[in-house]
């Protein structure tokens, strides 16, 4: 108790802190290597941690069950080291990406239209929003079989599933962005009798851009997962990564399953980074948060 008491004269406990501070002639711009290091080292360290955790869990498994968690060498020898399999993996990635990108394109275009329509008629937001939330909270996995029994097993039903997965973020982020335009900017347009359409194009949409792109990268990273989910129920014919996942599991080819999973993550990250990159290119010259490195 007695040594937690604050001394009456705090001044004499201050550290003398007088030293000369060197100047730099011009604040140096961050070098390329420095940027690479700050951008790459944290994810690599985190990745190593994940791999260590994986190895640790695996070492705890009894030997007869270790096949459930293939080793790194196993994944190389039975999957990535086999050219034919890598080719198949790439071919299937293209199939999956086609579904993901088409579905994403659908939800982006419909989502943007819906966002703008809700912005125009704000009462529609009240009408539509609850259903968007419901749509978002329905376990899509549960309605995949429904969609398939209704629409069949072709390309479009899968695209529709992707669209359902990825739709929510688009109209919501767009509407949020459109509504956050500064009141006085709107007043400025109103003073010139600018039409609603001109105000939308010249004030609201540019303003909403960065927010919208945050929505795009959320939707984008969901799209690949959604495409894979949509394929889980199609085991015949030439499908994408999702089909490979299921087939490999049925055949106990866990190495291939892991290879497909790794490929899927790479694709998800790629889509996410694409939108991040595009958003930065479009907005970093005026939107501060867009220019920040992540």
């Amino acid at each position, binding site marked *: 108790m007695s040594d937690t008491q604050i001394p009456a004269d705090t001044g004499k406990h201050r550290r003398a802190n007088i030293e000369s501070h060197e100047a730099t002639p011009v604040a140096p711009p961050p070098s390329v290597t420095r940027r690479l290091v700050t951008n790459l080292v944290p994810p690599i360290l985190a990745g190593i941690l994940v791999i260590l955790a994986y190895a640790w869990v695996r070492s705890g498994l009894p030997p007869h069950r270790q096949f459930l968690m293939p080793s790194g060498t196993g994944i190389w020898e039975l999957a990535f080291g086999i050219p034919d399999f890598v080719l198949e993996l790439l071919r299937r990635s293209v199939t999956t990406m086609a579904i993901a990108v088409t579905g994403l394109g659908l939800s982006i275009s419909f989502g943007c239209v819906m966002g703008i329509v809700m912005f125009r008629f704000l009462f529609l937001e009240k009408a539509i929003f609850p259903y968007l939330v419901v749509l978002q909270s329905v376990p899509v996995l549960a309605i995949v079989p429904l969609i398939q029994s209704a629409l069949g097993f072709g390309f479009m039903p899968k695209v529709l599933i992707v669209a359902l997965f990825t739709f929510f973020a688009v109209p919501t982020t767009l509407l949020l962005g459109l509504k956050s335009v*500064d009141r*006085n*900017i709107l*007043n*400025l*347009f*109103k*003073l*010139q*009798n*600018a039409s609603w359409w*001109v105000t939308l194009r*010249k*004030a609201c949409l*540019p*303003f909403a*851009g960065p927010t919208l792109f945050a929505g795009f990268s959320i939707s984008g990273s969901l799209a690949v997962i959604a495409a894979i989910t949509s394929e889980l129920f199609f085991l015949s014919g030439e499908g994408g990564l999702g089909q490979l996942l299921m087939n490999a599991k049925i055949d106990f080819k866990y190495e291939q399953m892991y290879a497909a999973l790794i490929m899927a993550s790479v694709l998800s990250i790629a889509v996410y980074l694409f939108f991040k990159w595009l958003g930065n290119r479009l*907005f970093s*010259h*005026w*939107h*501060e948060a867009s220019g920040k490195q992540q």
Partner: protein
Amino acid sequence: MSADSTSTTAPEGQAAADGASLPGGNAIVFDHVSMTFPDGTEGLSDVNLAIAPGEFVSIVGPSGCGKSTLLKVASGLVTHTGGKVWVDRDQLGYTFQDATLLPWRKVQDNVELLMELRDFPAEERRRIAAEKIELVGLTGFENHYPQRLSGGMKMRVSLARSLALNPAVFMFDEPFGALDEITRERLNDEVIDLFVREGFTGIFVTHSIPEAVYMSSKVVVMSRRPGRIQDIFEVPFAYPRAPEMRYQADFSELCGEISLSLRKAIEG
């Protein structure tokens, strides 16, 4: 001028005058104007004020008394609920408390914005923008984004943007309140320069009495909400004004009088 005179009448008001010149040859007339917001807040009540062309009128008053509302009614941003407003809204300048620049537009494109909304041809826009950018002393910054400008420079861009339309009436809603003292006084001089050179009619809302006196030919004191005109002071000094004026005895004296009136306004 008479052709574009706008007289706006409250919905239940009398018929508008038939495009004749404004009453008494004034630039702006508030005739028993009141403004009640939809939620029942009375913003203005029975405001009577006439501003002659080429006058520069400052408005001071307790905060929340309806100064901004007065400008919004005059500019048509909100519609008053009683009385009549007479003003030529065709060439209207308006600056807000902050510069309200579009951050994704370069200085040049920000200055062109209002002309763009008025469908000026691109060639003319560029020429006028260059002219006004020079007028506010920002030549060389045309290609900068607002993000990289200081508060004072942003405000200058905002002024240039309004000047591009050659405003006949220029409204300022506490434009320099967020700036430091030195920048503020410099901008005061620049606005007076612009006023003398361009010959618009100015309405300038401020909470600084010395600023009001320094800038204007008339200072209007508004009472607390619901705002009405409490006092009008004539400022006897000639334009252009020298910064030294701020230290003269008659300047301080006038500031003192207005201060007293404002204190009465606050106490009600």
